[in-house]
């Protein structure tokens, strides 16, 4: 394949992956605590370009290089449900799973039959000591802004909220959970702001998504044009230039 067709083809492939990421953001617009993904492309350098790295790097093609997660705050929606907790600001709730701790910003918790505070999937929410939070079900409970859980005016537990220095070490695990890809334990979040009776909605902006959708489509179209031109040039080379009249 010639350079033009190859570059256009890899660009087309990258735009299709962009569409995959966008589709996932839009599909999860109603997932509580969902964080949208965005992508960045590897740069295309031709070997003649003055900007090309001088260390003899060969031509690279514009492939989708990495995706990053936008950890910006989602909107807090009131639910008037006392087991719904929303994090305002940085940090993650920690839940215990059979395969180790997972992190989430989806604060849609519920009480188990034994009064344990847990996620929809039955994973226990951890307190600051890493233990499950077990409540007396006959009483109401209040969660203060600093994460302390109170029943009947007494503090019974403290919800753990952790933060990662570098949130890019988090990988998505599905089910609105994140897992850490490093062994270093996260630190307790510096500033806590927990809101009881609220849920954080997903942070994928629909207006932004609509603009991205249009841009992906148009870029795709341009690349497809480029590819057609490349194919046309190749055809002319074969059919016209080489013609002996």
């Amino acid at each position, binding site marked *: 394949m010639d350079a033009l067709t190859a570059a256009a083809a890899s660009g087309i492939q990258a735009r299709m992956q962009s569409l995959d990421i966008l*589709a996932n953001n*839009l599909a999860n617009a109603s997932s509580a605590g969902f964080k949208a993904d965005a992508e960045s492309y590897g740069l295309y350098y031709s070997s003649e370009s003055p900007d090309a790295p001088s260390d003899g790097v060969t031509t690279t093609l514009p492939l989708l290089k990495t995706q990053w997660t936008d950890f910006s705050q989602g909107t807090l929606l009131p639910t008037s449900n006392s087991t719904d907790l929303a994090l305002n600001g940085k940090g993650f709730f920690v839940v215990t799973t059979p395969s180790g701790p997972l992190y989430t910003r989806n604060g849609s918790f519920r009480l188990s*039959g034994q009064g344990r505070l847990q996620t929809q999937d039955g994973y226990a929410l951890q307190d600051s000591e890493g233990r499950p939070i077990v409540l007396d*079900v006959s009483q109401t409970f209040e969660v203060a802004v600093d994460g302390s859980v109170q029943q009947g005016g007494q503090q019974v537990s403290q919800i753990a909220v952790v933060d990662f220095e570098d949130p890019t070490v988090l990988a998505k695990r599905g089910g609105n959970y994140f897992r850490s890809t490093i062994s270093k334990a996260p630190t307790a979040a510096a500033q806590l702001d927990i809101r009881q009776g609220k849920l954080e909605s997903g942070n994928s902006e629909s207006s932004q998504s609509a603009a991205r*959708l249009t841009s992906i489509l148009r870029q795709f179209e341009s690349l497809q044009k480029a590819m057609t031109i490349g194919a046309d040039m190749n055809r002319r080379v074969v059919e016209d230039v080489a013609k002996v009249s």
Partner: protein
Amino acid sequence: MGIRALYTAASGMNAQQMNIDNIANNLANSTTNGFKMRRAQFQDLLYQTHIQPGAAAGAQTIVPSGLQIGLGTRPASNEIIFAQGSLTETDNPLDLAIQGNGFFQVLQPNGQLAYSRDGGFQLDKNGNIVDSSGNLIQPQITIPSQAQSITIAADGTVTYTQPGQTASQVAGQIQLALFPNPAGMNSIGGNLFEPTDASGNPTVANPGGQEGLGTLMQGYVEGSNVSVVEEFINMIVSQRAYEANSKVVKAADEMYQQINNVTQ
């Protein structure tokens, strides 16, 4: 690759469809006594990892963040929201509203106990207090046919007076059931709930006691806790989200069409 975006968008459309189904049921029951709304919850699906975050990119460097592409969404649950519904005055002596936590217990014809917040009670032909479907309230309370005024106290004590007598007679005491996790109960229709493993075992006690149960109000019924305005807003959001997902389907389709045209 490729077809992923189509299925991802389809999963989003499915999820919004389920959201609308849920909203429709909430709205349809906005005037059902004792009805508790449900709220649909969604989760993201699995991610396809193309490049592992933290993987080695070279001798000294690691990939700062990987390439993970999500595969859509799925409905995770629609939990029951047990917020208190509004209380409406009816002046019917057998209408009861629970102010606070707890459920009335009724005995179904199959011998199983069911639980309800619908306090529109009546008397059957034998003078037993029954719910609107004819299920007996538990513990069973019988009012003699000649009884005149029936009074139900905040703690559930049912008293009545007989003609020509001034002293009132006690017919029994209504008890309420408290569940550790009422959101885990099963709706079985007819405003009734059944306990599950997730809801835990009920504590049965007198209303207003130390167990944390609510008190009874005679002459009131608890309306549904559906907020029509909120449901309409949810409906608009859901409809727009559905539309956005269908736009992705269209975009993916256009892209495939163009790919097919490349070779022409």
